[in-house]
């Protein structure tokens, strides 16, 4: 497996004086160390905390949504205070439900699914897994976090402005999002302005982050770390960064145009001849469908931005706890590329019934089902990794296995929704909700939970409680199935999304028992997350001390202390001698061989000495400092 050409890549870095291993000294002041830090590890934790705040807010919003859906006239204590006139006596008006929908979706998609896996774990572990001392552009890294933070503040502010939070859904379709205010739609004023501005800010932050990830991975790999020796996590963060780099600018452009339509009287998305029932509105020449194209050109790659890092973490963790090399490593890398590439050509499947040209819809349909192929390759290889394994069932492994199960359950119904004909009954129903929540919501979150339980010892030097972790897993795993599988059935009956209540239609009445069941499952699943939160906080202070390599894993993050020092490897530039997943190698003394282990005392590493010689010949001792 010696990658001659890629080993050369690793030598591309600038030469440096011996002894200079880190570009910035460890900060001494509190503000430089914990707030405006340029250390990728601190920034990674900042991203994780931001996502953790957002995920709990988003979760509370979804609990309120279920209450509104199940008991439309129920009074919830405190809501009268929070929503004012929109929730008289604590009973939520329909527009409050839509505000919850919009804020839940925006929070979760942008500030959880996009930030935690990439900004959080990627930031913390990409440099360490490639043996670097930091990201390529540490100051840019700090900026991208703080810009994200401003985006979140602006979004949360939308709850508190006159007119209330935005009500147009996270997809913000015009003309509702453009001229809603002129139609007296609640939340269509300042709330919607802030919503668009928040997303625009987020787009900028993601661009900064993506540039950093790409440069770091290509330029800063340590000695011997050829591309095909990278952990799959690195490949997933890399692919995600490419998607982010190409997708977010389009959303940014769309957002600016929408803002102009609202504030400057332009008509990019608003056609002429619209009426409020009395007079014509002063717009002409725009197209609401243009927004949908721009939005989903971003929006579909966004689905993969959310799920790819979860795939990377799952592959990594499955291999580690199965004590087996990843099955089909190269196929896994190329499947991720395949998913990423195809992900840019399928956005139209969100628009089959939008009025788009029906021939175009057919093209998008066939491309969409093609995405099932690399996804099936991944699933096949995960099962292949487990086949013949010696599985250790620690909490990270439970969540990684949960990821595989949920990814299959959620992804597979994509072949229903991807067909033009079947989209006629299924579009915008609860079938879609069940599908995407399982695959891009819950599966992605299982990837994150797996990551937290797996890397917590490295990040904080202490172990999390296994017992609490297992309780958290069992209830959450059963709970999310209990929530989202019945939603498919609701969709088959025809229940539309984004309804504040289901009281107006006879054909929906029969579903009431299922609605109640799902709501109870939501309460239980939401409540059990407190166990996770407690475990996280308690273990920070009281967890048993973790060694450098508590899971007996192979990759570079486990070759340094827990937590790693400021420059990650305490002045040493690690050398990599083998691929990322050398478990259960016959003849080796242990059932794992770390990437940094130079001992080539077994036959399977025949390729390694060749690489070593090349490096020896180069005489290059300091690849790390740039």
């Amino acid at each position, binding site marked *: 497996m010696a990658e001659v050409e890629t080993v050369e890549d690793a030598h591309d870095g600038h030469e440096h004086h011996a002894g200079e291993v880190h570009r910035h000294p460890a900060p001494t002041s509190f503000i430089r160390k914990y707030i405006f830090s340029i250390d990728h590890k601190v920034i990674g934790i900042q991203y994780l905390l931001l996502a953790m705040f957002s995920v709990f807010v988003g979760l509370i919003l979804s609990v309120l949504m279920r209450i509104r859906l199940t008991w439309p006239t129920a009074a919830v204590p405190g809501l009268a205070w929070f929503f004012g006139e929109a929730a008289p006596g604590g009973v939520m008006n329909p527009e409050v439900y839509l505000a919850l929908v919009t804020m839940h979706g925006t929070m979760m998609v942008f500030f959880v699914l996009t930030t935690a896996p990439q900004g959080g774990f990627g930031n913390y572990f990409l440099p360490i897994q490639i043996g670097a001392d930091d990201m390529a552009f540490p100051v840019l890294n700090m900026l991208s976090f703080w810009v994200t933070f401003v985006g979140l503040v602006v979004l949360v502010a939308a709850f508190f402005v006159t007119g209330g939070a935005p009500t147009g859904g996270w997809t913000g379709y015009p003309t509702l999002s453009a001229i809603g205010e002129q139609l007296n739609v609640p939340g269509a004023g300042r709330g919607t302005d802030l919503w668009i501005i928040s997303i625009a800010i987020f787009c900028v932050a993601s661009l900064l982050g993506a540039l950093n990830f790409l440069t770091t991975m290509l330029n800063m790999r340590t000695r011997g770390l050829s591309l095909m020796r990278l952990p799959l996590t690195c490949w997933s963060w890399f692919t995600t960064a490419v998607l982010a780099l190409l997708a977010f600018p389009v959303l940014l452009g769309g957002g600016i145009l929408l803002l102009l339509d609202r504030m400057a009287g332009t008509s990019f998305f608003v056609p002429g001849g619209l009426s409020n029932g009395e007079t014509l509105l002063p717009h002409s020449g725009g197209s609401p469908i243009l927004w949908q194209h721009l939005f989903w050109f971003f929006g579909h790659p966004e689905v993969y931005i959310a799920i790819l890092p979860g795939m990377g973490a799952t592959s990594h963790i499955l291999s580690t706890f199965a*004590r087996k090399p990843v099955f089909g490593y190269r196929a896994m890398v190329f499947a991720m590329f395949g998913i990423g590439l195809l992900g840019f050509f399928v956005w139209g499947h969100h628009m089959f019934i939008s009025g788009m040209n029906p021939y175009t819809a057919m093209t998008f349909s066939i491309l969409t089902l093609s995405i099932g192929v690399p996804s099936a390759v991944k699933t096949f290889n995960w099962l292949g990794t487990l086949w013949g394994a010696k599985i250790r069932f620690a909490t990270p492994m439970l969540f990684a296995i949960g990821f595989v199960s949920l990814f299959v359950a959620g992804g597979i119904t994509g072949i229903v929704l991807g067909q033009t004909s079947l989209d006629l009954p299924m579009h915008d129903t609860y079938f879609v909700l069940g599908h995407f929540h399982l695959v891009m919501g819950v599966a992605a979150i299982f990837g994150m939970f797996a990551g937290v339980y797996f890397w917590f010892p490295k990040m904080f030097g202490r172990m999390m409680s296994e017992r609490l972790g297992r309780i958290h897993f069992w209830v959450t795993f059963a709970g999310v199935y209990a929530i989202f599988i019945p939603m498919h059935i609701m969709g088959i009956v025809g229940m539309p999304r984004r309804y504040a209540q289901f009281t107006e239609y006879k054909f929906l009445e029969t579903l009431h028992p299922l609605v109640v069941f799902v709501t109870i499952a939501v309460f239980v699943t939401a409540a059990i997350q407190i166990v996770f939160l407690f475990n996280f906080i308690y273990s920070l202070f009281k967890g048993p001390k973790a060694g450098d390599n508590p899971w007996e894993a192979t990759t570079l993050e486990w070759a340094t202390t827990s937590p790693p020092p400021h420059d990650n490897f305490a002045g040493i530039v690690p050398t990599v001698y083998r691929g990322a997943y050398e478990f259960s190698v016959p003849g080796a003394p242990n059932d794992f061989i770390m990437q940094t282990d130079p001992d080539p005392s077994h036959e399977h590493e025949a390729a390694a000495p060749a690489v070593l010689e090349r490096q020896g010949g180069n005489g290059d001792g300091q690849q790390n400092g740039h």
Partner: protein
Amino acid sequence: MGRVLAVLIWLITLLTVILFVSKRWWFPENISQHGVGIDRQFTITLLVVAFAFVAAQVGLGYTVWKYRATSDDKKERATYSHGNNRLEVVWTAITALIFISLAVAGQRVWASLHFQDAPPGTFEIRVAAQQFQWNFHYPGKDKAFGRTDPKLINDGNQNFVGLDDTDEHAKDDIVAPTLVVPLNRPVRLLLRSRDVTHSLWIPNMRYKQDAVPGLEIPVHFTAQKVGQYEIACAELCGQLHYKMGAKMLVLPEEEFQALMAMSQPDFQKQRDEYLKKYKLP
């Protein structure tokens, strides 16, 4: 722990399959001609989905049951393997074949609805959506639509579609919040919206189409069973989206013809009679 996890995965799979197979909750009755094809394609796809879902979950459960580390003896090793290229290629080819064939098969109904125009003899109805109401505009006795102009829209005067009263053809036009279609005869709808995007969703017809501001979108279908059915809005259109409903009446040809020849007040009276006569399923 591996066994518990395996059993849980299998149990979830079993319950899911039971939920789908029992059909305790399922599609409302199909009454459209094209819906037969949709339901058939759905069944075929669901079988493929079910097979893949069950196979993957059972397989996953099997591996975690079978390949759990049984003791703390770390001398016991897992199989050392980096994969199998032949298996990989075969598997990829099979899934590609199945998925692409499904995608192609799934186009048939779509093509019949969208690539061919409505057949001759089709009855045309204009649909004008607004927050939060569906207006169905019928040509009336003269079988010609009167001129409409968005400038003339005036909710205060009940002129929801902007009908021009000075136009000769407009005098007998009927505008009502009820969709009335003839039995077994193709109907062509022309969808418009005057404010935001709405979506005409008729579960029993297996039909859904956005009504988009600035566009006029034609759709056609044939209803095959007399009765009263529900229409909903499927695209978020504002705070009262959840109650933007309407009723559809499928009438025998003679009842339909008689109704279409009536004046607006008579139409409303007779429609109310039919809504009583034909109950919701």
